[in-house]
């Protein structure tokens, strides 16, 4: 066995530049694929986390007739006594936090400029609002008893040229179908790093939002975060009740789950294309090697080397190329993924809607699973690709191999 590897190693050394280039092609392919896998995983993970954290939560309890797309605050679509319901849900063991929220549609206007926005009434002290509290870039977060303060996102502030302390007018569609208008003072400006979300939402304390929308003691939803999101079905089953519907994160994010499946399939196709190309390079290298060494194969065969031993000799060469190429590529891919997992890749606002929120910066995330799958696949494809030239060499008739070379 060692002798095959010794010969294979020396044979690769005969055309050092060609061997290095082949190994490099394999390494580059592996690096690229590992980085792409880490990027996709990072993107999907971040998108799922961001969407759950900001938009849907792990569970939402809504009025049975509530339609999240309409943002209607008519009483028949809302939950009554939301504080009480939230407290009950919050007392369940797997629940991290449960908080009522009132969502209404409105328009922010200042001077002669205006922009549509979702007006969200929140319980300021709830931990569910940490992404906004932690994301304050100027001014301060809301207080529960604030009756004039509003919190707006950084992209909206930038587009309307607003800063903390400025006044804005807010128009709201009320529960009885009217429109009301009131002036608010910007208490703070926040960013969650997700422009698509931040530019379209403003926050008021729940009590103020209820009064403003004429929806006292009502809320659009109980927004629930769990300690472990995998327990969503279990918790949802425990809080079923009359006149309400309980939606889990998988139900609310069907599109995202579909995109994740699609991106996995897409990744598999990219893998096959790139590895197919690198396999072609390996086949080419070994084929050239077979043609150049026709005489040698004839001599080895004449002195008694059997077909399968000739195959073993070429497979040993492919094995060494695979070990060095895939090995170096994996290291580089891991290093690249680790680097971009720290600094992220800046994309800005990709303009994707709230169904699939993406942070402006995507952080790569390499899973052990995807790394191992890639390494094993790249390795197997290289070895399989080398079977063709190896078999070709093994089938040469010694007399023809010897004659061919003379």
């Amino acid at each position, binding site marked *: 066995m060692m*002798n095959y590897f010794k*010969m294979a190693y*020396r*044979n690769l*050394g*005969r055309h050092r530049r060609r061997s290095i280039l082949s190994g490099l092609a394999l390494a580059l392919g592996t690096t690229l694929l590992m980085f792409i896998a880490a990027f996709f995983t990072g993107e999907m993970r971040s998108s799922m986390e961001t969407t759950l954290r900001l938009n849907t939560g792990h569970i939402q309890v809504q009025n049975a007739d509530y339609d999240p797309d309409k943002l209607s605050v008519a009483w028949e679509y809302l939950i009554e006594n939301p504080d009480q319901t939230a407290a009950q849900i919050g007392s369940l063991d797997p629940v991290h936090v449960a908080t009522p929220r009132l969502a209404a549609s409105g328009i922010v206007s200042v001077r002669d400029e205006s922009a549509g926005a979702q007006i969200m009434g929140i319980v300021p002290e709830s931990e569910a609002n940490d992404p906004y509290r932690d994301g304050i870039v100027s001014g301060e977060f809301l207080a529960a008893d604030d009756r004039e303060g509003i919190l707006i996102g950084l992209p909206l502030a930038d587009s309307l040229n607003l800063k903390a302390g400025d006044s804005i007018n807010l128009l709201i569609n009320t529960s009885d179908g009217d429109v009301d208008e009131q002036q608010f003072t910007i208490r703070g400006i926040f960013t969650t790093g997700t422009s698509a979300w931040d530019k379209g939402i403003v926050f008021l304390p729940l009590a103020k939002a209820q009064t403003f929308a004429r929806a006292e003691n009502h809320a659009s939803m109980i927004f629930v975060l769990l300690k472990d999101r995998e327990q969503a079905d279990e918790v949802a089953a425990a809080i079923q009740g009359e006149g309400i519907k309980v939606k889990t994160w998988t139900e609310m994010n069907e599109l995202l789950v579909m995109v994740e499946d699609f991106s996995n399939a897409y990744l598999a196709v990219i893998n096959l294309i790139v590895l197919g190309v690198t396999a072609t390079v390996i086949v080419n290298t070994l084929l050239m090697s077979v043609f150049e060494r026709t*005489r*040698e194969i004839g*001599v*080895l*065969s*004449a*002195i*008694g*080397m*059997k*077909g399968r*031993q000739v195959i073993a000799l070429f497979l040993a060469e492919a094995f060494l190329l695979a070990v060095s190429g895939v090995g170096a590529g994996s290291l580089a891919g891991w290093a690249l993924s680790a680097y971009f997992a720290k600094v992220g890749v800046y994309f800005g606002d990709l303009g994707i809607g709230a169904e699939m929120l993406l942070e402006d910066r995507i952080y790569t995330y390499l899973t052990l699973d995807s790394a191992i799958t890639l390494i094993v696949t790249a390795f197997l494809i290289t070895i399989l690709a080398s079977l063709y030239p190896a078999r070709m060499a093994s089938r040469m*008739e*010694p*007399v023809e191999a*010897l004659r061919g*070379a*003379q």
Partner: protein
Amino acid sequence: MEVAKLTDVTRVYRIGEVQTRALNGVSLTIGNGEFTSLVGPSGSGKTTLLQLIGCLDRPSSGSVVINGQETTNLNRNQRADLRKGTIGFVFQFFALIPTLTAYENVEMPLLLNGRTPAQRKQRAMELLEAVDLKDRAHHRPDQLSGGQQQRVAVARALSTNPTMILADEPTANLDTSNGEQVMEIMKKLNKETGVTFVFATHDPRVIKYASRVVTLRDGVIEKDEIK
């Protein structure tokens, strides 16, 4: 005792529409311990005959028996098995494996025969000494002269104690003194070990060492003389 017996052997090559009859009904018996030359002009069929005796090729018709074993219907691997134990080759070009040292080249047939490392080392060094190249054991072929390379090839051919060594134009690429040196070594080994040598050649320097000269012309044996 005969090491090779060919009966009414023909070998026809087809290249496109053209058929070439390289051997045409040749019958030949090689006895144990012979030092035989196959001679004749280019295209007379001597290399083809040597390849058939060496089981590198199969006849189009007729029978080839090596050490009592009919070889005509053996497949590629069975022929490889037969070769590695009984037949050694020395080629016209210096057919050493360029990535292996002289020692490793001689060791290769022993490796293919499944000998232990100790047996391989002892046999390879013994043979390199016999061809007077012990001090060059760890040189690669490109560090050896043509004559030295051909002597390594002779040592390699002998390594598995074959009953017969087949040499195709072994001196064709060597100058006079190197050619003579190689032939002297082969003659000496023939005498000492009794191994049978068959050469295809048209070099008079080789023919003069032969104890039997078989002359071929146009694929048939024209003359068979024992000297």
